[in-house]
């Protein structure tokens, strides 16, 4: 058998692995206790002059001790030997695999109880049996799996092939499992990401404890009683917590701060939006300085974080705040080897509730003292500082932190997850982490990555189902905390989409062409063909008044978002001035602005009526909205429109459409020429028209279609009366009379509603009140009955 030629389970290394496995756990403890017992017994026997037995027990005790040393230092370690498969596999694999028939299923069964296998099971929420059932039972499939495992190990420069590598190879090479993963929207890349996460955990567990300077480190620093009262020694905190910041220590942010401090910068402004991890960068820096012994200027420096809120809350007045700070600065300067870190530094830069301006106290420290200070603040706060305290700001070396990319955020999330799981006793799946990244990125605009993702993940822990945090838990958390309907991110099922035209036609009369165009575009988006960084769909509806443009928008909201009220409607005739842009983009100060409406209801149809009346600036904004799927409010925070359907209506060219239809032309025949004409007549810029998914032309309704509109309106009236068990029926003559009275070439079907109210609803209401129509009655209305 080929795989048995490759994997030699009769090799010495394999035998040693099996021996180590047999002795692991309680076996080794029994041997050590026996050895110690025999050693004590030997001493007692020598004391009792029973020399021969004492020699025997001593010999056995020493022999056991020798064996224990071999077991602990060789068998348990079992380093990789050569490039052969059995020379590379770790003892956990070699020790548990049985000689004989080896195939993917048997390998999985042997390894499935190992914690690294469980790591995959838990992250992907896959039952061990499901994996087993979908693995091959053919020995001939093993060489491919061993090769893949070897490749995965060498790509990550692992010293040997771990259980994780073999499990990942099993998952990656099984076509049946790939189908299951694909159905769960997972790819091969996701398996490799989880493998990398697992291997980081393995490496961290093997990593040596970092050296923080020993007992003499603190003796290089003076006593700091006041500083200890108001500050927190980050160097000690990171040392005691055992947290690893290896990855963060090498980031450009930490390197830049370190370089600035090393070159003697009196102050560093650490600039980044909330949530970017400024405190984590400083914790990583403190780790770096504690471990680092190359740079003479920073050797053994300790970072102490000052809490502005504590200083401000304990001081009774401005004089006391200044006195406290002067004392702290004096102590820190005198003590030496201390860098002060001001988190939320903006609280020290201006007068206000819970803040105090102490720049005049800090300026001399920056100018003359040997003390180095780090101030953490947001970009806006730094701009404000430069504007208001230019001399102070000029003394600071700015270090701007960039928002991490998706890969880095996922890595932070993965590392954070293990701590959360341990503390909260939950299990967090991999799809939950992906959903956390996606939803926090889309709906949390106040914070930056990775902070907002970590915050959302923490908020989702109470929504764990049976202790398991899944993508649904994240959706529930964001729905409850942000008030958005994240769960409706998959608003309609595929079969409903396939019949979207029928659904819409339950509410719409004719306009087959418009309905078909819109439905096709929505199907493209739902199928994942369209660009996910733009709105779900964007449509320009062109046509005369009263032909069903708004009704189609409402129908889309009702069918696609399952709620007709999920529509944000703006009359663009109210936005004709350049300044009106501000109203549209108002942030938290105006809850009725477009931005705030979308933040509240991100899954909506945004209906912009009569766009041709809006100011040019608004049209430019529309370009950005259609291109990027987001707008930025006047406070600088982005709002996502990627879950919206944008519908823009216009009456431009209505007369031309009427004329074409009157000549008996079909929409398809003149559509292209009509749009060209709109561009050439400067009614719309080509760059705007090009950005819509579809330009949809609506044609005027004819009399038979208007009769159907009357029918739909009557359905609504009867729906309203249904609780009184009253049914109103119109004869064909009555319908024809209403159409004749309600039809207007300019206003389309719009006057029909008024006519119906006047001719039908008003008389019926009077008769109900007078008792002429009673519950349970069926009322037939004929043409002559109508007072028109």
């Amino acid at each position, binding site marked *: 058998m080929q795989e048995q030629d490759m994997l030699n389970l009769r090799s010495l290394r394999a035998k040693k692995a099996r021996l180590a496995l047999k002795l692991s756990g309680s076996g080794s403890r029994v041997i050590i206790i026996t050895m110690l017992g025999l050693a004590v017994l030997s001493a007692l026997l020598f004391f009792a002059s029973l020399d021969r037995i004492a*020699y025997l027990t001593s*010999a056995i005790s020493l022999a056991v001790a020798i064996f224990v040393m071999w077991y602990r230092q060789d068998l348990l370690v079992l380093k990789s030997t050569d490039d052969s498969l059995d020379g590379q596999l770790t003892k956990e694999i070699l020790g548990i695999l049985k000689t004989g028939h080896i195939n993917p299923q048997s390998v999985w069964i042997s390894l499935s109880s190992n914690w690294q296998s469980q790591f995959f099971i838990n992250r992907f929420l896959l039952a061990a049996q499901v994996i087993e059932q979908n693995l091959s039972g053919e020995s001939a499939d093993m060489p491919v799996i061993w090769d893949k495992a070897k490749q995965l190990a060498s790509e990550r420069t692992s010293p040997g092939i771990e259980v994780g590598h073999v499990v990942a190879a099993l998952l990656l090479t099984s076509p049946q499992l790939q189908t299951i993963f694909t159905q769960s929207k997972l790819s091969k890349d996701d398996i490799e990401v989880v493998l990398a996460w697992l291997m980081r955990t393995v490496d961290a567990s093997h990593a040596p404890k970092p050296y923080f300077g020993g007992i003499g480190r603190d003796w290089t620093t003076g006593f700091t009683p006041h500083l200890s009262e108001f500050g927190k020694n980050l160097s000690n905190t990171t040392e005691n917590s055992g947290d690893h910041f290896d990855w963060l220590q090498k980031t450009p942010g930490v390197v830049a701060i370190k370089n600035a401090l090393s070159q003697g910068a009196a102050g560093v402004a650490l600039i980044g939006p909330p949530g970017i991890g400024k405190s984590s960068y400083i914790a990583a820096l403190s780790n770096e300085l504690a471990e680092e012994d190359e740079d003479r200027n920073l050797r053994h420096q300790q970072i102490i974080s000052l809490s502005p809120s504590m200083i401000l809350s304990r001081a009774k007045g401005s004089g006391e705040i200044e006195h406290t700070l002067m004392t702290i600065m004096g102590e820190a300067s005198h003590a030496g080897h201390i860098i002060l870190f001001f988190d939320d530094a903006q609280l020290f830069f201006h007068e206000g509730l819970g803040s105090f301006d102490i720049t005049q106290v800090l300026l001399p420290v920056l100018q003359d003292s040997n003390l180095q200070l780090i101030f953490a603040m947001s970009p806006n706060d730094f701009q404000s500082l430069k504007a208001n305290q230019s001399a102070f700001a000029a003394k600071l070396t700015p270090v701007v932190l960039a928002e991490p990319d998706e890969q880095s955020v996922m890595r932070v999330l993965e590392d954070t997850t293990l701590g959360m799981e341990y503390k909260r006793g939950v299990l967090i799946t991999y799809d939950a982490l992906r959903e956390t990244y996606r939803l926090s990125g889309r709906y949390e605009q106040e914070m930056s990555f990775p902070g907002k993702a970590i915050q959302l993940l923490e908020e989702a822990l109470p929504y764990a189902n049976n202790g398991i945090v899944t993508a649904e838990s994240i959706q529930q958390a964001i729905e409850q905390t942000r008030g958005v309907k994240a769960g409706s991110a998959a608003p309609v099922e595929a079969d409903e989409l396939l019949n979207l035209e029928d659904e819409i036609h339950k509410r719409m009369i004719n306009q087959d062409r418009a309905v078909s165009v819109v439905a096709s575009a929505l199907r493209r988006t739902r199928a994942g063909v369209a660009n996910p960084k733009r709105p779900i769909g964007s449509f320009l509806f062109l046509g005369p008044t009263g032909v069903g443009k708004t009704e189609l928008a409402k129908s889309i909201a009702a069918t696609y978002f399952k709620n007709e009220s999920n529509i944000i409607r703006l009359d663009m005739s109210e936005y004709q001035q350049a300044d009106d842009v501000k109203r549209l983009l108002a942030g938290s100060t105006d809850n009725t602005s477009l931005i705030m409406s979308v933040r509240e209801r991100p899954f909506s149809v945004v209906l912009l009526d009569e766009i041709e009346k809006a100011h040019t600036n608004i049209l430019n904004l529309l370009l950005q909205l259609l291109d990027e799927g987001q707008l930025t409010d006047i406070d600088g925070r982005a709002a996502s429109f990627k879950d919206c359907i944008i519908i823009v209506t216009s009456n431009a060219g209505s007369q031309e459409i009427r004329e074409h239809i009157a000549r008996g032309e079909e929409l398809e025949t003149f559509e292209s020429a009509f749009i060209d004409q709109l561009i050439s007549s400067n009614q719309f810029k080509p760059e705007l028209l090009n950005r819509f998914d579809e330009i949809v032309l609506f044609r005027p309704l004819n009399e038979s279609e208007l009769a159907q509109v009357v029918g739909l309106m009557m359905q609504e009236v009867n729906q309203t009366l249904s609780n009184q068990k009253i049914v109103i029926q119109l004869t064909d003559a009555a319908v024809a009379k209403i159409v004749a009275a309600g039809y207007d070439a300019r206003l389309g079907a719009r006057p029909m509603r008024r006519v119906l109210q006047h001719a039908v609803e008003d008389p019926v209401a009077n008769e109900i009140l007078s008792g002429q129509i009673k519950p349970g009655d069926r009322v037939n209305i004929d043409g002559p009955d109508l007072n028109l």
Partner: protein
Amino acid sequence: MLALEFLTWWYGQGWLRRWEGIVTYAHKITQAFSIRILARTLFEPWRRIISYPGAGLSNHLKAMVDNLFSRLIGFFVRVIVIIFSGITLIFITLVGTCLALIWPLLPFIALALLIKGVF
């Protein structure tokens, strides 16, 4: 075969590790007692407790004496710790060396004890 594997390790990697162990432990002791830091700051004032002179010669002299006293305390504390760490280092090195020297003989000692017990 496993017995041969054991003997190969015992007189190969196992013995080598005993010698390496002496260096590893010596390094750990040096780190734990911060010997490099203590040596570098040997004459610095104890916990940086220093006096600043006021006006007048007597104050200058007093500050000088205070600071000299602080440096003396620092010097003595550090020297004591360095001496203690040195003793520990020597002790660990000696024990490690003895164990490394006796290491190849241990299987024979076990065998000798067994023979002495039986016969």
